[in-house]
Each structure stands twice: as structure tokens, then as C-alpha cells.
């Protein structure tokens, strides 16, 4: 979020903007006093390290024009010039950000505005490690000419070896796309700057299935929703206690495990929730076996494989079944049989840091539960505000056969289960 606007007069260390890095959201204080002449980037933009963020006119009048090419870095501060603030130092023509300048004629030189950064001009020196740099040097290879294949474009020893063993030195391509969610409907999207103005993606495969299912469901089943906030502190404690047991070392327990057990338990108490409205046959089909669908975000898109006879599983059985389901979904080895016959569904939006959602029913089912993140929140216990682990459970249901009373009973049952899981688990 920008805290200043163009034209603002700002003081040294005045907060300019909140920047989110991989580790933290930080407030950036201004390194200069002056007048803001330009802001680079909008809220939500991913800005490469070394790219300009803001331009500030410092000192007296007679400011340099905004897009002046790089001036000598020793231009003294205070002569009325445009300073450019970047994330971690200033990109220079040499490549690497200059962090320490030796004392020159001028005191505390203001960084010069970098040359305009284009998608073909790398802002940073190629990343590598000293032994690899030395290895390249010993073989007379300019490390700048090598395209790194390691993590984040790191140039590895094998990259250099490939060039040494006769491969042609490859020119560095454009900097890696800014990290962000660039996957969309199962496709890797080109960066905003370099992609086509308009891109057409064929609707097929997983995308086709998702679209058809959602349309069929949304325009045949009248959706209604209900939700409940639950103090899940005991669930969190129980999971934590179980995880520390050596016998559970190989079991992947998560809040989702408990929600799955809770929902199956609710179905046993209220079988109506595990039903299906068959308009063509003029029947509502109640099923006394849960095929528990889990909405899975995979590299190919959204799929909803299910766990057959989930109502028969105990804690470890459910945890294992969920682990297998997710692994197969991610690996793309889910079988067609595992995709059909879902009777109840859970979509776990918590890992995205979301509190709740109102999902659309998979066709052929009458209820889907969305599980939000479990987060610490103020909670009233005996008229005192205390900190508890709170989760929101939401449910969409087919109002043709499920009324508010049934939906509320099921949600309340799930809520009670999560609020105090031990008795419910022991009772099974």
C-alpha cells in the first residue's frame, strides 16, 4: 500500500509503502527528504529486486527530468536531482547492486537513477557460487553467457559443464517471471509485460469438466449456505499431541482429517445430508455410505477425487486415505473410478489463508463443506475474551431436498466435533 502520493513533501524515514517479501511484510522508510515525483508500480504488483519504486526530488529546485539516464554515482546529494529508491540497492550498469561505495569526493552519494530496466536487460548479475564461478573462469567461460537451470536461475556446476563439453553458450534470457500465481486453468501464463495482449486458452480436459459440472450444478440445484465459527483449540491441541507420538510419526494428521471424520460422523447422525436429488426420476436418493470428495488444487486444475466408504475409517485410516488422495491428485495418477460417485464434499480453503467460502456443489451431491483457516482469534469464554484457535466451517446445500434445519444440525454437529474431538473419536 502506498502511503505517499506524487507531489507529497516527505521527510527522511517517513514510511513510503508496505512491501511484501517472501518472508515478511515490511514498511519501507524513505531514505531521502524531498518531493515525490513518481511512483512505480501499483498495489499488488510484483516488483523485481533492483527495479525502481519511487522517484524523489531532493534538495533545492532545478530538478533533473524524471527519466534522465544514469548520472555519475558520485553526484552529491542536495543539488536538486532525482533519487530513485529500490528494494535492495540500486541496479547499476555493472550489474550487481552496489551496496558499499568507497568514500569518494562526495559525502553519502545518492544513488543515481538506474538505466531504464527492460525485460531483456538483466537487473542483477547471474547468480552462482564461488566454486562454480572459478570453474567457469578456469575454462575460459564467461559466466554471464550461461543460462542457469538451478533454483531461481542459479548457475550450477553442471550448467557450466554442459557448456564446457561442447554446448554453445546460451545467452541469458529475460529475467524469470515474477513469482506469483501465474497458473490459470491449468496453463502457465506469460508475465504481464511479455505476454500477448489477449490470450485464448482452449476449454478442455479438467477445465471442461469443471466448467460443465459447475454450470450443471449451479443452474439445477438451488444453492443455499450456512456457516458456523468454531473454537477448534482442542482439535489443534489433540493434533499436536498425536503428532508428537512416535507411533504416529508416519501419519500425516491435519485439521482436514478431523473435519473429514466430523462430516462422516454427521452423515451417520443425519443421513439426509448424504442424499442426491434426482429430478428426472422424481426421487431423492439417500445413501448410507459416504464417498467423501476432496477438492484438490492440482497442476492440471481443480479435481474432486473421493474416498470410498469414508464413514468406516478411523483417524489413522482417514489420514492415510487423505494423504494418498492428495498425492495421487498432485501426481496426476487419480483413476476415473476415484472421481465418480461422490456423495459429500470438502473443500479446504484454509491453506490459502482464507476464512471461508461458499462453494458450488459437485453435481450429484447435496452438500459441500468449506473449511477455512484455523487462526488465533478473540473468543468469549465465561464472559472473558480469550485467545482461541478459531475456524469457520461453511456449507452449501441443495435446497430442493435439504432445508435450513437439517443443514444447521449437520453444521452444528461438525462444530461440536471440532470443538471437542476426543469424546467423538472415542465414541466411534
Amino acid at each position, binding site marked *: 500500500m502506498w502511503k505517499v502520493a506524487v507531489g507529497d513533501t516527505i521527510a527522511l524515514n517517513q514510511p513510503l509503502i508496505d512491501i511484501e517479501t517472501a518472508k*515478511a*511484510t515490511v514498511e519501507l522508510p524513505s531514505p531521502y527528504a524531498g518531493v515525490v515525483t513518481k511512483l512505480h508500480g501499483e498495489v499488488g504488483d510484483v516488483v523485481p529486486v533492483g527495479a525502481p519504486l519511487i522517484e524523489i526530488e531532493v534538495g533545492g529546485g532545478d530538478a533533473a527530468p524524471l527519466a534522465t539516464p544514469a548520472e555519475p554515482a558520485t553526484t552529491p546529494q542536495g543539488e536538486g536531482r532525482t533519487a530513485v529508491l529500490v528494494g535492495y540497492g540500486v541496479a547499476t550498469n555493472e550489474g550487481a547492486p552496489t*551496496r*558499499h561505495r568507497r568514500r569518494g569526493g562526495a559525502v553519502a552519494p545518492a544513488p543515481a537513477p538506474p538505466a531504464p530496466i527492460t525485460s531483456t536487460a538483466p537487473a542483477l548479475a547471474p547468480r552462482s557460487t564461488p566454486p562454480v564461478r572459478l570453474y567457469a573462469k578456469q575454462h575460459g567461460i564467461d559466466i554471464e553467457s550461461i543460462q542457469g537451470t538451478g533454483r531461481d536461475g542459479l548457475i550450477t556446476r553442471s550448467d557450466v559443464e554442459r557448456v564446457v563439453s561442447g554446448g554453445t553458450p546460451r545467452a541469458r534470457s529475460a529475467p524469470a517471471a515474477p513469482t506469483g500465481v501465474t497458473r490459470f486453468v491449468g496453463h502457465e501464463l506469460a508475465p504481464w509485460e511479455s505476454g500477448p495482449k489477449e490470450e485464448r486458452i482452449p476449454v478442455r480436459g479438467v477445465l471442461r469438466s469443471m466448467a460443465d459440472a459447475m454450470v450443471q450444478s449451479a443452474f439445477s440445484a438451488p444453492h443455499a449456505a450456512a456457516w458456523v465459527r468454531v473454537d477448534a483449540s482442542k482439535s489443534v491441541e489433540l493434533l499436536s499431541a498425536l503428532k508428537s507420538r512416535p507411533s504416529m510419526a508416519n501419519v500425516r494428521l491435519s485439521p482436514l482429517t478431523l473435519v473429514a471424520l466430523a462430516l462422516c460422523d454427521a452423515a451417520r447422525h443425519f443421513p439426509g445430508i448424504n442424499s442426491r436429488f434426482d429430478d428426472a426420476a422424481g426421487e431423492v436418493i439417500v445413501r448410507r455410505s459416504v464417498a467423501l470428495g476432496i477438492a484438490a488444487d492440482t497442476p492440471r486444475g481443480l479435481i474432486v477425487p473421493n474416498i470410498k466408504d469414508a464413514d468406516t475409517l478411523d483417524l489413522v485410516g482417514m489420514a492415510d486415505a487423505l494423504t494418498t488422495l492428495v498425492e495421487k491428485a498432485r501426481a496426476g495418477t487419480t483413476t476415473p473410478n476415484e472421481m465418480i460417485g461422490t456423495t459429500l464434499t470438502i473443500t479446504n480453503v484454509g491453506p490459502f489463508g482464507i476464512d471461508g467460502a461458499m462453494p458450488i456443489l459437485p453435481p450429484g451431491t447435496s452438500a459441500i463443506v468449506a473449511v477455512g483457516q484455523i487462526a488465533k482469534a*478473540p473468543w468469549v469464554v465465561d464472559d472473558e475474551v480469550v485467545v482461541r484457535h478459531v475456524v469457520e466451517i461453511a456449507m452449501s446445500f441443495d435446497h430442493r431436498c435439504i432445508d435450513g434445519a437439517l443443514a444447521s444440525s449437520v453444521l452444528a454437529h461438525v462444530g461440536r466435533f471440532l470443538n471437542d474431538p476426543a469424546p467423538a473419536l472415542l465414541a466411534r
Partner: protein
Amino acid sequence: MSEIPLVQLLTPEGERVTHPEYESTLGKDEIFGMHRDMTIIRRLCNEATSLQRQGQLALWAPLQGQEAAQIGAGRALQPMDFTFPSYREHGIAWCRGIPPEKWLRLFRAVDHGGWDPQQYRHSVPTIVIGNQALNAVGYAMGVQRDGAEEATMVFFGDGATSEGDVNEAFVWAGSFDAPIVFFVQNNQWAISEPTVRQSKIPLYRRAEGFGFPGIRVDGNDVLAVHEVTKRALAHAREGGGPTLIEAFTYRMGAHTTSDDPTRYRIDADVEVWKHRDPLERVKAYLVRQHQVPASEFDATSAEADALAAKLREDVLAMDSPDPLSIFEYAYADVHPLIEEGKRDMIELGVGGGAH
């Protein structure tokens, strides 16, 4: 604050209270001086945080919230005492007379330490958690063998008490009655791990198991910290052996500038501790009891601002070190492997005044 006994002489509201064993004899000028110290280190610390955000420092470990713990302890030291810090003890460095720009050399990565430990009787920052506790006990045992009447004091955080080094240091210090004061600033968080997850008992009670006394002091009460530390140091100098002081405080900011505490703790806790601010209570006391006028506090703030501006200027003007200086200061004497590394670097054309 808690039901566990802790020494407090000045409440968060700035009221002087009595304690059966500890009483402060500090007068108005000394207390005002401590408020000045705390104001200055808070201001300098904020400047350093800004400098990190602006790309001028690689990292910074803020101390905000712990000013009283450090100034109270730092002002209790005598010139002959020797101190071993972690990397957050900027307030101790201030009390030991180390110029602020030297604190930042390590964080700007132009130096491996920043100062000569012998000159200031203060070791260089130790990044390896808790390691300095062993160094300090070794030093204290040396002092003991020299028969010198001086105390060694070592600083670490609550997270360090979970480290083997600190526990080993406790064993040695206890077994040999080393003239040392262990000063743990329990700021409640070992990065993202709360203290309650690290110890089933209050940290000061750990001392009992190692055979020396432990005491918990309100770490946000500069008078209490000063008095408790003064007594523990005297105890050490007089041959009484070690003491563990737990300064119960709170890290108001991030662990370091690479950390985002909003990811693991709630604002409500921070709000509670804001009311226990170490500076505000001293100011309230000085205004109410000694009628110190606002202009004197303004003058302190102006002094702190000027020091911050000087710090910024000094940091921006720091020279990059000669790359070959990395080989210096590792060993007192010439070491063949270090020399070999240095020769290799020179062959590679690095450093050696080529810049």
C-alpha cells in the same frame, strides 16, 4: 504481569514501590540519565531499522521494548567488568562507550565484529545462539584464576536457554563458582517460538538445578534491573559465584528485520505490553516526583535525533573493507591454513589494495 515473583521498584504507571530485599538508591539525575540512555538507544535502533529497509544494512536486530533491561544492566557494570553480548545488546554497547557506528559495522557487513573487545571490555556480537555463554564462563574462570576482582556478565535471550551451550555454561559456572552473571532477557519470543514452549518452569528457576541462585526482575523497570544486576555483579566480584537474572520483558518489534511477527503473534499481546513501556514509566515518575519539565525530555529527544543523523551519515560513509581483511583477526598468531587461503585469494586477483 504474572503470579511468579519478580522484583519491581517502579510500576508501569510510574509509581515507586518497595521490595523487601531490593531498594534503589538512585537519585533524580541518575534516573534521568537512564531515561536519556533509553531514549537514545531506542532512537538509534529505529534509525538502524530504517537503514536496513533502505538497503544500507544487511540485517538489524531491534531492541525496542528491552531498553530498561539493557540500560539497567549496563549502568550497573563497573569499568573493570567484562561483558559478552548476543547480537541485540545495543544498549549494553552504548553503556560500554562504544560509538554507535561501530555497532552497525557488522550489520553492514563491512566488519566481522566492529570494535576491539579489550578496549571496551565488551566482546563482539555473537550470532551463534548461546555460544557466548561458554566463552564468558571460560573468561570468568580465567579471571578467577588470576585472582582479579572483576565480574563477567553474559547476555542472551530466552531462546538461548534451550541451547546446549548455555546449559553447559551453567554446569561449568556452577561447578567452579565462576564470577559470572548470566543475564537472560526473556522477551517471550525465540523468533516465533514462545517461551512457554521452551520451559515448563520460569527460566530463573533453572539456576537452582545448576546450584546457583536465580532471580526474576521486571525487565521493563530500569530501577529494578539496575539494582538486581548491581547486587549480582558485586556477589560475583566478591567470590560468591554465579547468578542467573531473568529480565522479564517483551520484544515489541520483529526478531530481526527479516522477520514478520504478525505471522505468529497477536496484536492484543503487543498492546498489553505497550502499557508496560520501559521509558514511559520513568518519564511519569520523573515528572510527578521530581517535576522534571517537558523541555528536558525534548532536549533528550533532540540529542537522540542528532545522534541518529550522525549515525546515518557515518554508515553511508563507511568504506568497503579490503576483501583480504577477512583473513585477519581469526587467530592471534599466523596460521598456515589461513595464510594459504589468503595466498589463493591474491592469486585469484581479489583484494590487496587493487581497489
